[in-house]
């Protein structure tokens, strides 16, 4: 197997065209965090709508923080991708790059056809992310991240009923999280990396397509199996995994989640609550009987949990290996001793003395990267340097392209 000298991630280059796509922007962010150089190309005059996502820094510029977070450390270029000369310029950049990430909800968001690219740039690894997948981009159907979540099967199953908190009559719920978008972005990263590994041997890159609705399937493997092998259609109201007690418990300052799966954990929970008497109670003797008598467990647990704090309950419980976790809010997470001890939070350095704490990567890896200062996030901030250095175009020529409104120079 021959070794390609360029294959340290810091020598790999990615171009990202991800207007409106959290998944593709996150894919680019992960590639950046792995050490690749990432150039984000925006359509001239039509910047990425994700720039408008709140919140903004009070007193800061107009760029929303989610955009800053997703694009920190990338180089920002603005090109008129709808003009043949702008496309040609971008193709020149792609010819000197290793990876292209595209994302969006329509074919207009993803201007480069991957099959076509494979013919002109066979070494390029090119991935596209969209709610329903590439073929749908050319159809009439409109979709976005919200409709994709609900179409994917995740929505119908969310939220799951807990004892004391039935779901009857309540609509399926998309939590305020970017779970499916980011999972799709990670699957795109995985496809890209696998293709780069393979390219070391073959010299050829792949075109890869990722659909958000398909990326949800591994998450609901239990429900798919229950349907295919037992004919059961899982709902929000019925738990497929029949364990108890399993659900939220109110404490004096919020909630914790208790998740007793093994009988041994039930014994330890009884020890924790100083309720050894329950061990002899046939209603709670094993997993199935506890599940049958779930509602009766509620007041028993409540008596011990309610007067105590989330912290006390979690610490005492986990000391006995009882599966308990607090229901955390963002504020709790920034104070969480585990996250702090592992240095999970990094900084978003906005410039002019403005720094914000922000989540880092979930890996204690050999080479953590230092925060970069992004400062202005104006579209086209790095057009000149990128086109000069990476596309090898003379600066005067780039400026002339700017005068002709083919590229944007901030």
């Amino acid at each position, binding site marked *: 197997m021959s070794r390609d000298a360029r294959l340290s*991630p810091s020598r790999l280059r990615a171009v990202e065209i991800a207007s409106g796509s959290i998944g593709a922007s996150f894919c680019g962010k992960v590639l950046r965090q*792995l050490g690749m150089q990432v150039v984000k190309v925006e359509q001239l005059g039509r910047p990425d709508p994700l720039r408008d996502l709140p919140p903004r820094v009070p007193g800061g510029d107009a760029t929303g923080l989610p955009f800053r977070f997703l694009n920190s450390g990338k180089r920002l270029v603005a090109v008129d991708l709808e003009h043949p000369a702008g496309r040609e310029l971008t193709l020149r950049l792609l010819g000197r790059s290793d990876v292209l990430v595209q994302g969006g909800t329509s074919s207009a968001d993803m201007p480069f056809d991957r099959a076509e690219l494979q013919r002109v740039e066979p070494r390029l690894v090119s991935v596209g992310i969209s709610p329903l997948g590439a*073929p749908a981009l050319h159809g009439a159907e*409109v979709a976005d991240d919200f409709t994709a979540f609900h179409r994917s099967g995740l929505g119908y199953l969310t939220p799951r009923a807990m004892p004391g908190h039935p779901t009857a009559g309540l609509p399926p719920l998309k*939590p305020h999280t970017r*779970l499916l978008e980011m999972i799709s972005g990670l699957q795109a990263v*995985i496809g890209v990396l696998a293709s780069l590994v393979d390219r070391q041997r073959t010299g050829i890159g792949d075109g890869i397509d990722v*659909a958000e609705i398909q990326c949800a399937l591994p998450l609901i493997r239990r429900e798919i199996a229950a349907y295919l092998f037992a004919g059961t259609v899982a709902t929000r109201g019925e738990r497929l995994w029949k364990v108890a007690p399993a659900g*939220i418990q109110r404490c004096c300052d919020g909630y914790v989640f208790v998740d007793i799966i093994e009988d041994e954990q039930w014994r330890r929970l009884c020890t924790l609550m100083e309720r050894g008497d329950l061990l002899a109670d046939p209603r709670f003797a094993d997993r199935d009987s506890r599940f049958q008598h779930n509602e009766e467990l509620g007041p028993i647990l409540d008596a011990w949990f309610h007067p105590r704090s989330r912290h006390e309950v979690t610490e005492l419980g986990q000391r006995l290996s009882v599966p308990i976790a607090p229901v955390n809010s963002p504020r709790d997470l920034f104070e969480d001793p585990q996250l702090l001890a592992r240095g999970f939070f990094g900084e978003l350095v906005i410039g002019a003395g403005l720094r914000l704490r922000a989540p880092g990567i979930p890996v*204690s890896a050999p080479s953590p990267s230092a925060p970069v200062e992004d400062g202005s996030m104006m579209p086209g901030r790095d057009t000149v340097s990128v086109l000069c250095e990476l596309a090898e175009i003379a600066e005067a020529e780039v400026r002339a392209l700017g005068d002709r409104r083919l590229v944007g120079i901030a």
Partner: protein
Amino acid sequence: MPRSGAPLAGYRVLEFTHVWAGPLCGQILADLGAEVIRLESRRRLDIHRMGGPYPENRPGINRSGVWNSQNRGKLSCTLNLATAEGRDLARRLVGLCDGVIENFSPGTLERLGLGFDVLRAVRSDLVMVSLSAYGQSGPHRSFVGYGPMMDAACGIMAAADYGDGVPRAVNGWAADVGGALFGAVELLVGLLTRSPGGARWSDVSEYEAAVLFQFEALLAWAACGEEARPSGNLAPCGGLTECFACAGHDRWVAVSATTPAHLRTLAALTGATPPTSPGSAGLPPAELYGGLIDAVGRWTGTRERSEVIRSLQSLGVPCAPVNDVADLLEDPMLMARKAFMATEHPEIGTARSYGPVWDFLGRSIGSPRPAPCLGGDNQYVFGELLGLDGATIADLEHRQVIY
């Protein structure tokens, strides 16, 4: 001419895993063509080998639908790591592998003499990935963490709220899946950058992966000291994103009207007054959508879901069926993508499951093999790979080393 063959063909990965996050990480690599060997033992079977659902409702350690779906594409060998010989064979096997994935409790492999420092001596360019609930370090490294609890800890439950302040259960997906995907990323980066003597170990925290998914809420707190007050499906950034009941039992449509034009279209269709943004051209604030939501609900409530979707799609308003699993298996987009596959399993026959999630355009990456029976590849692993003869294997089986 279309290309064939999978991108990771020729790479071999060993799994010391159980339950879900580790097996899912291994499955991703198997789907990409790596030879993934799952090391198991009869001493302590994976909980999912015994959890069903079972075809024809007949239990069996090779018959569980969940186990078979999350382990298809792999090989299985059995080794009793409580024995010194078993641990020695495991080390020898690592010497023949490019990567190792493990998701035992932090410290378990070290106690067995199979920690990274030992394994890197066996294989100097080893790529090793450890997945654990909270990570290998920190005060909570030994905390028990199952998926549903991690949803609570990572902040997703607090973000799943109908506006009544009650955190809702969200199925235990985020941490296991996030951890598994970051684990696969780390393993692939290791393969991409490896060099002799450059063994690499990645410590992935499933909790941190799930926390990362809450980045918007975390940024809002960091910037403004404000905690979002979730209100069901309505997005904090405006627009009408909601699920509406259609005719029939528990049939819903998801509607996403996130531009003023979409809002006007919905209002015109349902006879409502469109909410308007006071004094600006942007989207009206969430509290002004009540009348429109009621009107859309009345309109969808008497109509078949397919009719609702046809009408809204023809007007360009993003919408979709809220698929249950039966709908999902017939979803035309998923069928067009060949998202589901079937394997021929020696004990349960035709086994359908989800397939690899990527479409490698113009390239056939092959179809994964069925999930392995327990120890189904012992002959290959111990005979062909490690070169043990039949008598030795029989003796090791007899003494419950290969077990």
